[in-house]
C-alpha cells in the first residue's frame, strides 16, 4: 500500500492503496466517483476514459502509482457544481450540446465519450467531422451510430453553444506537458482521504427530482449507493493481481533494484501488462518495476547520423515529433495505427518491443529501418541489432535484469520506407498483416538504372515474431520496381513465410494479402 496524491477535478486527494490498483478502481471505489464506467477492462471500449494532465487515458490501464503528483479530470469535473433553478444538475456547454442533439442514449459510454470530446475541444478542435471521428475513435458506442455524438461535439466546437468556464477548466497543461513527468507536488495532501466522502459532498442527489419525490425508498437507495462508494470496507475492494510496485526516480535506483536478483516485471505504459493482470491469464508477476519516472528513458534526440528514441517515448510523442516526422515518417505512420488516442498516449516504443507481440505495429518499421536496441542493467549497457532482438514467440534477448533504454535508428540518405497495416477495423485493431518496405533508389548512385539497394521487407503477424523476409529482400536487392519484379517478389514472399490461422484471420488470407500489399507498394514505387 502506497500513499498516492493527485489533483482530482481541481481538488487535491490522497489515497492509501496498492500502487498497481487501477486508476479506474481508485476513482470508482476508493473515492466513490462512479461516473467513470468499466466496459471491458482491457482498454478497448473507452468507457473509462479520463484526462490525466493534458491527455486522454483509459483508466483501466493506468496503475494509480503513475498518477501520483499528476492532474486527473473525470466526468464529475466537467459541469459547474450544483443544481440549476429547476433542481437539475448543471451542465457544461459540451454536456448541454450532447443533451440537445441526442448524443447520449443508454449513457454508459457517455462519460468517457465526453472526456474524449473535452480533450478534443481543449486542444482547439473545430467542427470538422473527420477530426471529430478520429478524436473519439477510442470510444465505442453501441447505441447512436455516432452521428449525434459528432453533431454534439461539432455544436460545442462551432460556437453554437456558449462556452463558459467550468469549475475545473484551465487545468490542462501545454501540449508537451506530459513528456516530462511532473514531480510530486508538495503540500497536496489536504483533501479527501481514503475514508472521506468529501469529494461527493457537493454532488447533487441522483435520479430526477420528480422520481425521488415520488419514491423515497428508491431515492434514498440511490443516494446511499453514491455515499457508500468511498466508505465501504476497504478490505472488500481488494482485487486479484495487485502486485507490489516500485517506482524508482533514477536509472541508478532502478539498476539497484534489478541487481537484487529476483525477477521484476517492468511496466511502461501498461497497455499490455494491465490487460494481462486484469484477465488473470498466465502467472501474475510477483513484483513490478514502474519506469514512468525515469527521465533518462524519455525524449527524442538527434545524434550524428542517428535518431535516438528513449524507450519511454509514447506513440503520441512520436506523432507530435517534428524530428521523427522528418526522419522516419513511416514509423510515425505506424504509431498512428496503434489503438486510438488513449492507447497512443500511454503505449511506448520500448513497451512495444519488450512485449514482442508478433503483431507489434512499430516492429516491422524498426526492422526495415535497421534500428538497434540499447539495453542496460546493473552490469552495463549493450546494443543489439533489432533483427536479433526478437528471439521466438514473445521472447526477446532482454535479460531479466535489463531494461530497454533506447532505440537507435540510423539516418540513411535516400532511404524510402513504406508501411501498411491490414486490420479488422480502422482504429483499435490488432493487425492481421503489417508490412514495411525500405530501399535506397539506385538512381542517386552511379548506376542510374533505378536498381534498389538496401532492400528490407519486414512483416508483422506473419510469423512467431515480427520478421524480415530475407529471401524476398535478396530477390529485390539490385532489382528495379518493374511489374515483373513485383510479380516475382509477391511469389517469393508467399513461398517464404508461412503464417497461421488465429482468431483474427486465416493463414491463406495473410499469405495472399502480404503478397498483394507488397505488390501494391512496388507498383506504387514503380509508378505503373
Amino acid at each position: 500500500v502506497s500513499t498516492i496524491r493527485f489533483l482530482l477535478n481541481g481538488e487535491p486527494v490522497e489515497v492509501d492503496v496498492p500502487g498497481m490498483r487501477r486508476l479506474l478502481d481508485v476513482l470508482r471505489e476508493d473515492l466513490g466517483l462512479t461516473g467513470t464506467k468499466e466496459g471491458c477492462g482491457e482498454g478497448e471500449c473507452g468507457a473509462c476514459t479520463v484526462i490525466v494532465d493534458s491527455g486522454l487515458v483509459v483508466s483501466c490501464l493506468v496503475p494509480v502509482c503513475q498518477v501520483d503528483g499528476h492532474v486527473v479530470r473525470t466526468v464529475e469535473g466537467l459541469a459547474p457544481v450544483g443544481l440549476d433553478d429547476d433542481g437539475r444538475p448543471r451542465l457544461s456547454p459540451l454536456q448541454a450540446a450532447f443533451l440537445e442533439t441526442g448524443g447520449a442514449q443508454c449513457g454508459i459510454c457517455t462519460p468517457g465519450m465526453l472526456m474524449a470530446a473535452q480533450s478534443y475541444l481543449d486542444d482547439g478542435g473545430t467542427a470538422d467531422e473527420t477530426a471529430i471521428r478520429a478524436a473519439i475513435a477510442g470510444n465505442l458506442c453501441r447505441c447512436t451510430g455516432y452521428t449525434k455524438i459528432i453533431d454534439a461535439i461539432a455544436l460545442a466546437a462551432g460556437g453554437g453553444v456558449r462556452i463558459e468556464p467550468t469549475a475545473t477548466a484551465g487545468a490542462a497543461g501545454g501540449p508537451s506537458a506530459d513528456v516530462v513527468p511532473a514531480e510530486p507536488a508538495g503540500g497536496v495532501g489536504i483533501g479527501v482521504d481514503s475514508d472521506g466522502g468529501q469529494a461527493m459532498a457537493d454532488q447533487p442527489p441522483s435520479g430526477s427530482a420528480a422520481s425521488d419525490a415520488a419514491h423515497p425508498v428508491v431515492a434514498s437507495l440511490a443516494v446511499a449507493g453514491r455515499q457508500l462508494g468511498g466508505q465501504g470496507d476497504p478490505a472488500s475492494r481488494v482485487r486479484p493481481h495487485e502486485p507490489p510496485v516500485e517506482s524508482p526516480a533514477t536509472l541508478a535506483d532502478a539498476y539497484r533494484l534489478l541487481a537484487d536478483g529476483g525477477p521484476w516485471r517492468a511496466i511502461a505504459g501498461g497497455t499490455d501488462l494491465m490487460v494481462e493482470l486484469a484477465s488473470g491469464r498466465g502467472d501474475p508477476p510477483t513484483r513490478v518495476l514502474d519506469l514512468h519516472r525515469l527521465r533518462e528513458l524519455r525524449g527524442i534526440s538527434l545524434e550524428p547520423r542517428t535518431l535516438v528514441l528513449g524507450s519511454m517515448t509514447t506513440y503520441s510523442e512520436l506523432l507530435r515529433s517534428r524530428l521523427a516526422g522528418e526522419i522516419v515518417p513511416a514509423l510515425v505512420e505506424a504509431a498512428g495505427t496503434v489503438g486510438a488516442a488513449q492507447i497512443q498516449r500511454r503505449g511506448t516504443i520500448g513497451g512495444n518491443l519488450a512485449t514482442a507481440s508478433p503483431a507489434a505495429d512499430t516492429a516491422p518499421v524498426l526492422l526495415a529501418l535497421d534500428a538497434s536496441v540499447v539495453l542496460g542493467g546493473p552490469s552495463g549497457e549493450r546494443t543489439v541489432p533489432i533483427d536479433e532482438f526478437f528471439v521466438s514467440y514473445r521472447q526477446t534477448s532482454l535479460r531479466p535484469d535489463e531494461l530497454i533504454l533506447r532505440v537507435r535508428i540510423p539516418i540513411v540518405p535516400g532511404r524510402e520506407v513504406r508501411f501498411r497495416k491490414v486490420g479488422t477495423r480502422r482504429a483499435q485493431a490488432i493487425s492481421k498483416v503489417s508490412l514495411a518496405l525500405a530501399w535506397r533508389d539506385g538512381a542517386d548512385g552511379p548506376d542510374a538504372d533505378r536498381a534498389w539497394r538496401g532492400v528490407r521487407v519486414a512483416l508483422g503477424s506473419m510469423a512467431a515474431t515480427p520478421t524480415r523476409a530475407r529471401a524476398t529482400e535478396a530477390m529485390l536487392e539490385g532489382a528495379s520496381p518493374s511489374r515483373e519484379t513485383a510479380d516475382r517478389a509477391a511469389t517469393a514472399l508467399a513461398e517464404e513465410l508461412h503464417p497461421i490461422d488465429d482468431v483474427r484471420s486465416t493463414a491463406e488470407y495473410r499469405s495472399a494479402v502480404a503478397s498483394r500489399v507488397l505488390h501494391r507498394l512496388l507498383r506504387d514505387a514503380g509508378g505503373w
Partner: protein
Amino acid sequence: MTTARRAPRHDAVHEPAEGQAGVRVGDPEATPLVIEPDVIAPGRARVAPLRREGPEKLTGDALYADDLVFEGGWYGGTVRSEVAHGRFHGLDLGEDFAWDRVIVATAEDVPGVNVVSLIHDDQPILVPIGGEIRHRAEPLALVAAPDRATLHEALGHARARVEALPAVLDPAASDQEFARYELQKGDLDAGFAEADLVLEGTYRTGHQEQLYIEPMAMIAVPEPDGGVTVHGSLQCPYYVHEALARGLGLPTAKVRVVQAETGGGFGGKEEYPSVIALHASILALRAGRPVRMIYDRQEDISATTKRHPSVVRHRTGVMRDGRIVAQEVDVLLDGGAYCTLTPVVLSRATLHAGGPYAVPNVHIVGRAMSTNTPPNGAFRGFGAPQVHFAVETHLGRIAEALGMSPLELRRRNAYREGDVTPTGQVLRESVAALEVLDRAAEAAEFERHRTWTAIARERREAASGFSPDHQLAHGIGLALGWHGAGFTGSGEEHLASVASVQLTEHGRVEVLVASTEMGQGTKTILPQLVAEELDIPMESVDIAPADTALVPNSGPTVASRTAMVVGGLCVLAARRLRETVEARNDGAPFAAVYQIDARTHGTTRIDQRFEPYPGGEPFDDATYRGDAYPAFGWASAVAEVDVDLDTGEVRVQSVVAADDVGRVIHPVLAEGQVEGGTLQAVGYATIEEVKLDDGRYLNDRMATYLIPTAIDAPRLQTILVEAPFTGAPHRAKGLGELPMDVGAPAVVAAIHDATGVWISELPATPERILAAVLAGVGSSDGSGHPTDDPQAEGAA
C-alpha cells in the same frame, strides 16, 4: 403509385441543417424542434423534449448496477462447464483453500424449482450432480466471497468433475428440434412451371453479440421477511420477477426487481438477466447478505445469448418482367443448447422470410435445432435480419440474372395496400414499402450512382491486371424490408399488459409502466404522450422507476413494442383520466382543474389493460393463418462502399435509411434508433463475427470481437416516413428493430456492385471477399492477383 398516406415532407422528415465544414450541426436556434400547431397529428410532438434522464447520464450521476453499493455486500462468481457436452459428476473443493471463507452453492441449494423459467422448462439454474451439461459455459456451481481476490482464489480451487460426451455443433446434423413452422400460399408447382427463370441460393449468417457497453450486472439483497430484492441491468423486470419467484420458491410478494440504469440491451438483456438474478439471489439468501454478480466482459461474451446463426435456402421463380411467381424458402436456425426464446425467434424469421413482396405461390418452412453451444436468444430484429439478408441478397442475384435494376425489381414486387401475405393477412393500411424504397433511392441517387459504378467496373475489366487507379472499387447497394410491429400473433392478447397513469394527491401526473429505459427513450416519450393527451406541460408528468414494487406488468421491453403498444396504453389511460377528471369538474379542461381535483379527490389511478386492435383476423397459432401482426413497419437502406481490391477490406462510406414508423413521436430519439440500428447492421455485415472452436467462442473479448468505431461508421442519413396505424390511438408502430433488417443486405449488394462477387455468408469479411474475388479470376498470371473481373461470381 404509393398507397401510403404521404405526410407533408417538412412534417415527416427531420433533417438537421447543414453545418460548417461539412458537418451536420444542429442549429441551436432550431432545438428544441418546434412544429406548428396546425400540423399536429395524433401522437405528434409539438416539441421534441430533451431526454428525461439525460442530465444524470451526462454528469456521471446516473447509477448503473455496478455503481450501487450495499454495505456488507459480497462478490459472486460462477463455476462453468469447460466441455460442450458432458455429464457433471461432482464438484471437488481443493484442500489448499479455506472454504469456510466463502459460500458455495450447487443445484442442491436451489430453494425452488431448478429451472430458468421462460418458454420451456429445459434450462436448469445450475446443472445438478449427475445431470447433463449441454454447453461450454453452462453454470455448475456458485461461489460468493467477501472480496474479489478471495473469489478469484476460490474459483481457481474449485474443480468440476465432468465426463465429456460427443457434442453436436452443426444444427444441420442435430436431431433435436426446438420448433418448426410452415407457411403455404397458392400452388408452388404451378408457380415454378409458369416461371421464365428459377434461381436457387443458400445464405448463411453467424452469431452476433449484442455488445452492450455495460456488461451484465445484478445485485441481490436479502430482505428481513425472507424475500429478496434484485437491482440490475435488465430489460424485462417481470421476466426476472417470475423467474425468481419460481426458482427461489418464494411468493411473488416477496420478490422485488428494480432496474438500475441500464447501459444498453438490444435484446441481450431480455432473458439472461433472469439467470444472473437467480444466481445472485441463491448466494445472497445463503450468505444472508447482499451479493453482487457483475460479469466481466469475457464472462459476458462467453456465456450470454447471441443472435441465432442461420442457413436459409431460396428457390425462386420469376417472369422476364421481374414478377416473382413462386417462392420456396427453407429457414434453419441454430438455437444453441436450450430453448430460451428460440421458437418465437423462429416464428418471426419464418413469417418474414419471404420479404416484403407479394408472391402468389409460396412455401416457407422454418426449423430451429439444438446444438451444444450456449443458447442463442434475442437480439434486435429477432430472426428477421437473418432472413432479410437471405431474401434481399437473393433478389439482388435475380435482378442481375434478369439484367434489371434492383430498384425496379423491388418496385414491381413490393407489397401494396390490399395485398395478402403468406399467412392470409390482408394488408389493409399502413403499407409504405414503395415509399421507403423510393425515398431512400432518391436521397442516395441510387440509379445515377449505379451508372457510374458500372462504368468503373467496365474500365477495370478493360485494364489488364493491376493499375494504381483501381485499388479501390466503389459500389452502391439497396435493400427493402418489413418488420411486424409488436408481438407475433396472439402474443399481446396472452400478455394482457397493463399500463397505468395516475393523478396523485399532490397534483402530479405519473406514468406507471414496467417498460425500461435502456437508451431508446422510454422515460421521455411515455410522459410526452401523456402530457400531450392531457394538454399539460411535459414537466408535470413523472414516470415511476421500473420497480416491480411500484409498477404494473406492462410486459417486456422488447419487439419494438414500447412506443406502439405501451405508448398506446398510456394514451388511452390518460384519455380516461382526463374524462374522469373533466366529468367531475363540470367539463372543465383537465389542464385547468387537475391540481384542484387532486386536492379534492386524492389520487386517481387508471389501469389500462391491452385490448386487441380493432379489425383484423385473429392469428391461429396452430395453422399459422390470420394476422401475424397488427401492422408492419417498412424500411429501406442504400449503402455505398469502397472495397480495397488488394485486401478485400470494405469501407462503408454512407447509408441512407428510410424507415416508416407510423407516427414519429420524437424525431431526435427516432433518428437515434435508426442511426444506431443501422450501424449495428453495418457491423453485422462487415466485421462482427463469432468464431467457435469445439463449442467455445474464441473471440470472447472486446479486443477480438470488434464493432465499428467512429471512423469505421458510415455517414448516416435518416428519413422518417409516416404511414399511420389507425389501430393505435397515437398511430405509432414499432421502430427499434426496423433498421437492423436492411443494413446488411444493402452493404452486401454494394460490395457486389463494387467487385462483381456475391458474398452469401455474413459477415462479408475481407477473407471471404478476397477468396471470392480470387476464385472468380483465372490463374493466368500465376500469382493470384486480381484482374477485376466484374462478372466473377465466386461465392454465391
